[in-house]
């Protein structure tokens, strides 16, 4: 787990090729290591986009307009949850609770936790992420 965590944190995903290497180090079968990788939501099997948008979809955020926000976010990015834009700029993921429920709805965009997110604020943040890139 600790090794996988480091790989994930360093690369943003866990490449398939890492599994036999890790299995060798910890003296487990490849199947066992693959089992751990596939169990946890954080370990991505594919590289994510340059900016990852993780939107909370749990109850507190639902109660605070999270569903309408989720529709807006999907339209703005042209993505469904779990997808990455073709140019590799954005990945949209659902999360279930960021522990920021007193400031619902919440999201993590890039590395930053955002509270009381509105469609307008979301558009601003995404626009500035796009500007930085150009």
């Amino acid at each position, binding site marked *: *787990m600790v090794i996988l965590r480091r790989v994930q944190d360093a690369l943003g995903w866990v490449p398939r090729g890492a599994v036999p290497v890790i299995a060798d180090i910890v003296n487990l079968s490849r199947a066992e290591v693959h089992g*751990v990788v596939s169990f*946890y939501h954080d370990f991505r099997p594919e590289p994510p986009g340059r900016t990852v948008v993780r939107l909370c979809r749990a109850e*507190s955020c639902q*109660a605070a307009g999270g569903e309408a926000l989720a529709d807006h976010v999907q339209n703005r990015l042209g993505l469904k949850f779990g997808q990455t834009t073709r140019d590799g700029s954005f990945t949209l993921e659902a999360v279930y609770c960021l*522990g920021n429920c007193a400031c619902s709805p919440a999201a993590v965009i890039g590395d*930053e936790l955002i509270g009381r997110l509105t469609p307008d604020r979301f558009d601003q943040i995404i626009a500035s992420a796009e500007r930085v890139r150009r």
Partner: protein
Amino acid sequence: MNSTTVFIPRDSGALSLGAERVAVALMVEANRRRLDLTIVRNGSRGLYWLEPMIEVATPQGRIAYGPVAAEDVALLLDADFLHGGDHRLRLGPPEDIPYLRKQERLTFARVGVIDPLSLEDYRAHGGYQGLTRAVSMKPEEIVEELVLSGLRGRGGAGFPAGIKWRTTLQAASEQKYIVCNADEGDSGTFSDRMIMEGDPLVLLEGMTIAALAVGATRGFIYLRSEYPHALRTLSEAIALAERAGYLGNDVCGSGKAFRIDVRVGAGAYICGEETAMLESLEGKRGMVRFKPPLPAIAGLFGRPTVVNNVITLATVPTILERGGNFYKGYGMGRSLGTLPIQLAGNVKRPGLIEKAMGVTLRELVYDFGGGTASGRPLRAVQVGGPLGAYFPESMLDLPLDYETLAAKGGLVGHGGIVVFDDTVDMARQARYAMEFCALESCGKCTPCRIGSTRGVEVIDRLIAARDGEKQRAVALLRDLCDTMTAGSLCALGGLTPLPVTSALRHFPEDFGLPATAWQER
């Protein structure tokens, strides 16, 4: 002139609302005006509708301002806020804000008050007195103090903490462990995070007392990966405590060793279940274990292990410092002490409220929370996270007490309350409960793994069904819920029926059902 101290929270919630930008703006502006000030990054007081809330230390005490945006900083300085000057954002002394004044803060006494990473500040506010007392006591005496306090596991299960410790103390083994469950996954809860970011030393102190009580030498904090800020404060706090001899080979001169490591999870709700957490700590898939054996007897790596939630452990120092009898003086019935309640969702004043157990939902949602944020009528509250029951407004007079809520088909859980207004579709919420269970099930037992997926389908069918077919779908759903409740290994499968059946019982109209459709048997 002496330097003025300004407090700006480092709490994730405050940061998510721009606290960092406020701190930077204040530093830049103070530099420009050649003002001498010290910025302390404290935890949050838990008044989240006022965040970022900053406080300034004046000779008359601390004065709060909020919610402050970076753009307000220059104007605040113009209004001489460094001396408590008047401004439209001025809130007065924080202790006088009714939301805080009406609370009974024991576990959260220091959160938002002190610098979380200052040992001096921690000690000046009563820190390490519980541990100092524990060092002079026999293990049995520490355990009995905890038993006397009546403290029950604040993670959700509500099992008496003292009994758990006694079991581990009596288990013979060369190696024992303390595991802190910091995998706070319930929607609507954030009290663990607030402690870890706002007063991490109290958690380390509580774990150290637990170690002395049961004879453990290693401790682990299993932290969810969604809490990067908590990871940072915890890691720094552990380093501080080690340097000062509160952790290490010789804890406070007791001759006993205790070390704590933080392990970060990888996004699996089920790892908040204690046996799945132990599996995950051992580097495996977070699959639930059969019980018995209890973790208290055969836990981490098969050794006797105390597994407690953050709040439970963070409450231990108060109990040791002031005695079990003192703690037991709060609360009602068999629910003793205080509970840090987290108010979230569609509510005007969300935040953290620590009160003696027995406080009613109505007091919390209206007196503290001020009703819905949208201003629309309140329709439902979900108490105790995604596995907790939905209650209608007519049941808000229920007291927050383990036994009362259980008798009404609900649970206290980790103390989260999520408020919904009248736009909520309860059939959709019931469906979501099953969907969440399907997504997060570890897959070990069939009722949870398969039942949750069938549950989503049956609820879909129930919603779409015509009159005549509805009763059949209800009967099927009832059967399925019974199977999950009785046949699941752990609380995920076993309690997912609670939000589903409570939605059906109290809000049958959302399923197109008559009021009597869900009769108790």
